């Protein structure tokens, strides 16, 4: 039982990290960035390359080095997100939504198969093994690395929340989410803020990618597809565009999956997750914490 809860929370913190980027971008420019899951994948591969350059990790110096790699990767994927927005999305602002969505699908394709062309189609093994003896807490087995990864995820999420609620930058983001035109008139540099939003969202996805690589040990060029879907589900559960809601949604989805897997078997896990998505969209499309939009029939 506690094991199931712990597993759920652990996986859920990954979902939440990726979902945040989805949610932020959606909140600010109402775009479902299909390529977001691929930025997670890109993060995993970037981390792989950086680690490779550093000559792999031995378990002694593992954690500090891993954190350094994490930071480097976040910067790189963040920049990739900025470039993506600049090249593929910004020119289409104001175009029909359909064009933007199709561009996002194209971007997702380009990232996936671009990575495949560079890194090959076969899964790569992450040059990190975080060992350590599992601890027993309340009957659940949890490893040190799980704890560290969860802690990193929590720190990142708290940091993001502070940034959005407490800083000038965050205020600008929220202003644009409400009304981009007026924000521009009030002197907010809309393009710059959108760029920075993409940077943050992509950096978080990249971080999640490295962490997933380090934890699962294997990465491949299609790994972002499924998590992109899951992250969207998490964002919808919590309330897309709402940051605390999205975090909550991620954790909840993790828990739901953990229990769903237990009851239905692992092969039905993804079906279960999408079932939850469709249920939520039917019953409460604004999510748990999403504000209800003015009733429009």
């Amino acid at each position: 039982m506690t094991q199931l809860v712990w597993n759920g929370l652990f996986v859920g913190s990954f979902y939440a990290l990726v979902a945040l980027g989805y949610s932020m971008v959606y909140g600010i420019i109402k775009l479902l960035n299909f390529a977001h899951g691929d930025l997670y994948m890109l993060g995993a591969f970037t981390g792989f390359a950086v680690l490779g350059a550093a000559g792999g990790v031995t378990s002694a110096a593992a954690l500090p080095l891993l954190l350094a790699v994490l930071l480097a990767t976040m910067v790189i994927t963040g920049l990739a997100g900025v470039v993506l927005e600049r090249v593929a999305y910004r020119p289409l602002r104001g175009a029909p939504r359909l064009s933007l969505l199709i561009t996002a699908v194209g971007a997702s394709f380009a990232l996936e198969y671009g990575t495949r062309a560079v890194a090959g189609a076969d899964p790569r093994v992450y040059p990190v093994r975080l060992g350590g003896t599992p601890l027993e807490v309340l009957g659940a087995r949890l490893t040190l690395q799980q704890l560290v990864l969860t802690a990193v995820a929590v720190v990142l999420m708290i940091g993001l929340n502070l940034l959005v609620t407490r800083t000038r930058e965050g205020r600008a983001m929220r202003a644009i989410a409400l009304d981009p035109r007026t924000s521009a008139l009030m002197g907010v540099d809309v393009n710059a803020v959108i760029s920075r939003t993409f940077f943050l969202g992509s950096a978080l996805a990249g971080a999640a990618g490295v962490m997933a690589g380090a934890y699962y040990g294997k990465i491949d060029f299609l790994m972002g597809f499924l998590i992109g879907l899951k992250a969207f589900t998490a964002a919808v559960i919590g309330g897309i565009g709402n940051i605390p809601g999205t975090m909550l949604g991620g954790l909840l989805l993790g828990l739901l999956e953990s229990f769903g897997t237990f009851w239905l078997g692992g092969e039905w896990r993804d079906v279960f997750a999408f079932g939850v998505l469709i249920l939520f969209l039917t019953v409460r499309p604004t999510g748990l914490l999403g504000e209800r939009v003015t009733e429009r029939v």
Partner: protein
Amino acid sequence: MTLLDVTELRLSFGGLLAVDGLSLSVREGEIVSLIGPNGAGKTSVFNCVTGFYRPTAGRITLRGRDLRGLRPSAVAGLGVARTFQNLRLFGELSVLDNVRAGTHLWLRQSVLDALLHTPRYRRSEHECTEQAHHWLDFVGLRGDRYGPARALPYGEQRRAEIARALARRPGLLLLDEPAAGLNHGEKAGMVDLIRRIRDLGVAIMLIEHDMGLVMEVSERVVVLNFGREIAEGRPEEVRRDPAVIEAYLGGEPDA
């Protein structure tokens, strides 16, 4: 005979009351204007009547039929047509196709007719096009009917939108600022057009800021401020009403 009856209509967005207990009615074949300072809740009333907003409280009936809870398309099906404050033509589609949209409700044509190109399909398509031309003639559109609607000059777009509404064969037409952005000559044309529409037996409810036009065409004027009715009556009565003068000249900076 009363066509549209609005009783104690209330609409709130969160804490903000956009419409606060408004009652009004429109008789068959009548032209009623809804005026008031910006933000007085005029367009909100239109949106409630046409089903785009769900009122917080109150009753709206058309010929005794309750309109609450109906989708806009169902309200349209009962004979209410509207235009939008900022033109909502289908910009990429041709002018003619835009007006054809008006025939959607009454055109009898099944999917099977379309797949098999039955005589009924041909007949209905023909009628649809004829009607579209007819209403474009009626509003006096001069521009290219085969070009995209967004290519029409502004005043012509207003006319095309009215043609689209008329092609629905409505009993009640809601015009949201039909003269906004029109020049002097075009406004005169609009007055003429509104009267000709009324002469078809169509009742009209009008939101308009151009007082000259309102005074010229309206049979009755309802004045709104802060979502409430502050005056109602014939144009010349309303013009002299102190509450109306107060609402327009005092208090409201953007009146």
